[in-house]
């Protein structure tokens, strides 16, 4: 049985008109991803900056102010308040106005100058555990550096001179690592939302039955639904990739030989998943909720937020079936390291397998629906 391309194109044309005739839908398709990339590109970062610091300085000398300045000049901390009563610090931590509290004792300067042991107290709000972990490390370093330079006799020699160097990403720029993740997420969202309602809507409106009595085959029906969305997704991907490179300055070292097939397969997979959901659901509401049921694990188990190698083994296996995981591997490797097809063919192949399997299942479901209708 051969495909009738004229019929497919006819359906695609109808779908495109339906998709693009409404100005609000056009905005959602082409403007929303740009805004989202800008917002989430800035939001998703794990290094800390401007952590709220509250200071209780009971010494109030040039030396204690210098220690506070040492905190502020790093850029990791921002002063949100100062007081000489410890009670105010507790209030600031309780209310979440401050994340780190620095308490300098009254005998601070005397102790430092006369080589007496002294302690500065650091209170850290552990409710934001990731910020707290990073912040306490920085705080300990800053106090240590201060102590070394201010010890009597012009600084203590000795100690460790820690030299840290990061390979593959020397500045440890997390944006270069996270923005590709945002791109993968946005493209998946676009494919899913545009297709997961596609079949069930026709069913709710009763137009599915009308289509079933035309000579249109189920395969042609799926292809006709797929093509316009795929086109939209490709355009969106091009727009936001361009934006990532020009606005965020993410290095694009990717060879097209890898990016193009991986992206096309990823889009195909997203659309196939959407269509599959659509054939499973009875109502649009149900389709929307089922979409979420797939969307949540595919984001969380993709390595976007959290490295896959640190997950429990069972979840690591599950990620193998997750197209986002494979695409993310490709995109990150291609963006950051400029890796070629040789190192990434397995992920590209996995995308192909998952995509074809899902499309086949969607087709099977649609055939059944058509048969019973």
């Amino acid at each position, binding site marked *: 049985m051969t495909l009738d391309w004229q019929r497919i194109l006819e359906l695609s044309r109808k779908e495109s008109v339906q998709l693009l005739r409404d100005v609000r*839908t056009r905005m959602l398709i082409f403007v929303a991803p740009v805004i989202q990339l800008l917002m989430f590109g800035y939001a998703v970062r794990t290094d800390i*900056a401007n952590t709220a610091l509250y200071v209780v300085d009971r010494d109030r000398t040039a030396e204690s102010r210098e220690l506070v300045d040492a905190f502020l000049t790093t850029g990791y901390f921002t002063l949100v308040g100062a007081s000489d009563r410890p009670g105010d610090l507790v209030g600031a931590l309780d209310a979440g106005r401050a994340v780190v509290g620095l308490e300098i004792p009254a005998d601070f300067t005397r102790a430092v100058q006369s080589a007496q042991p002294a302690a500065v107290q650091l209170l850290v709000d552990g409710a934001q555990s990731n910020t707290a972990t990073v912040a306490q490390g920085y*705080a300990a370093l800053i106090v240590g550096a201060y102590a070394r330079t201010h010890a009597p006799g012009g600084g203590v020699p*000795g100690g*460790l001179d820690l030299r840290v160097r990061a390979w593959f990403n020397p500045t440890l720029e997390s944006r270069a690592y996270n923005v590709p993740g945002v791109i993968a997420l946005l493209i998946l969202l676009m494919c899913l939302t545009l297709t997961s309602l596609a079949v069930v809507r026709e069913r709710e409106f009763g137009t599915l039955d009308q289509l079933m009595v035309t000579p249109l085959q189920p395969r042609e029906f799926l292809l006709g639904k797929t093509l316009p969305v795929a086109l939209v997704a490709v355009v969106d991907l091009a727009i936001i990739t361009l934006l990532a490179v020009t606005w965020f300055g993410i290095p694009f070292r990717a060879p097209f030989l890898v990016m193009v097939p991986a992206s096309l397969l990823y889009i195909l997979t997203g659309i196939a998943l959407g269509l599959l959901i659509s054939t499973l659901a009875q109502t649009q509401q149900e389709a929307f909720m089922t979409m979420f049921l797939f969307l949540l694990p595919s984001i969380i188990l993709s390595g976007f937020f959290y490295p896959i190698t640190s997950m429990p083994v069972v979840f690591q296996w599950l990620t193998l079936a997750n197209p986002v995981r494979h695409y993310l591997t490709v995109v990150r490797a291609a963006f950051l390291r400029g890796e070629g097809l040789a190192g990434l063919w397995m992920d590209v192949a996995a995308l192909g397998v998952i995509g074809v399997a899902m499309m086949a299942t969607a087709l099977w479901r649609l055939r059944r629906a058509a048969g019973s209708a």
Partner: protein
Amino acid sequence: MTFRRLWAVARKEATQLRRDPRSLALAFALPATLLVLFGYAISLDVRNIDLAVWDQSRSEASRRLVSSFTSSGYFRVVEHLEASADVTTALERGRALLVLTIPPEFEQRLARGDRVPVQILLDGSDANTATIARNYAQAIAGRFASRTGLLLEPRIRIWYNETLDSRNMIVPGLIAVIMSMIAAMLTALTIAREWERGTMEQLAATPVRRSEVVLGKLLPYVGIGVLDVIAAVAAGRLVFDVPLRGSMVLLAALSLIFLVAALSWGIFVSAALKSQLLATQAALLTTYLPALLLSGFIFSIAAMPLVLRLITLAVPARYFVTITRGIFLKDVGLAVLWPETLALVAFAVVAAGLALRSFRKQLA
């Protein structure tokens, strides 16, 4: 507004919900999925970072430095290296995330009072983990150095979440995310569906008023939302052992306000867009994603640029995350949380007002 008509709309909506058992099941399956994924699959604490050591000194002092890495719990030694070529392969093959190189005569130079260079090489390709590993390493080395002859000592105390267990941070925040998601999914389609199916005209022809329709549609979903909150709080407390230190009553009251705000927003989106396709997209973009990424749930708001920090002020989930963390972990009450509470009330009023207004235009 009569209670009888309001009740009739609510009953009709509830019946419709009941007849769609699959959607109803999903309304409970989704929060459960999120809890399992966030509770079990990921924890943001980075532990057992793979560390390779090239110890050229092999002395008591160098072993002490290495053991201060391993005893912290953040690192585990996976390999002892013998030559500089091993360093490269360990990183390139991905066998270690971090290589610690201790120079020869480490102990002697330390005793002499030299500043001894210690090198740390990191695999930066996962920038998130690498940054955290780097900070741990710096903190450990800093503490090691400060024990050797410095008098000023930083005493660090962690409050509210003493073990820095990320689950204690995630689960309270997750409740806000779950509620945003449920609210968006449940109500975003209700009115758009009536328009698409043509039943809105029928509804308009009845004496039922718009406030009765909006409230009546809201009620059954508030019921589901409340059940979801209870389930999520119970799971957090019983399954994940997150301490609930504050007032349960306050948590319930503020959750209700947040729920009304989020559900009303869904109704507004639904009534304003009149299309289920558009309403789903808009609900997703205006509630779920901001709740996940712009609420401070995982990513620190303070670290965002100014424009984005201003945008987060318009994200209700941001306030609710502060509230749930405050009540769960900090045992604070309204005396501290009143600004967030006021913000939630304002959101609820505005969203309900918008829902009513957008509805009027259509019925006219």
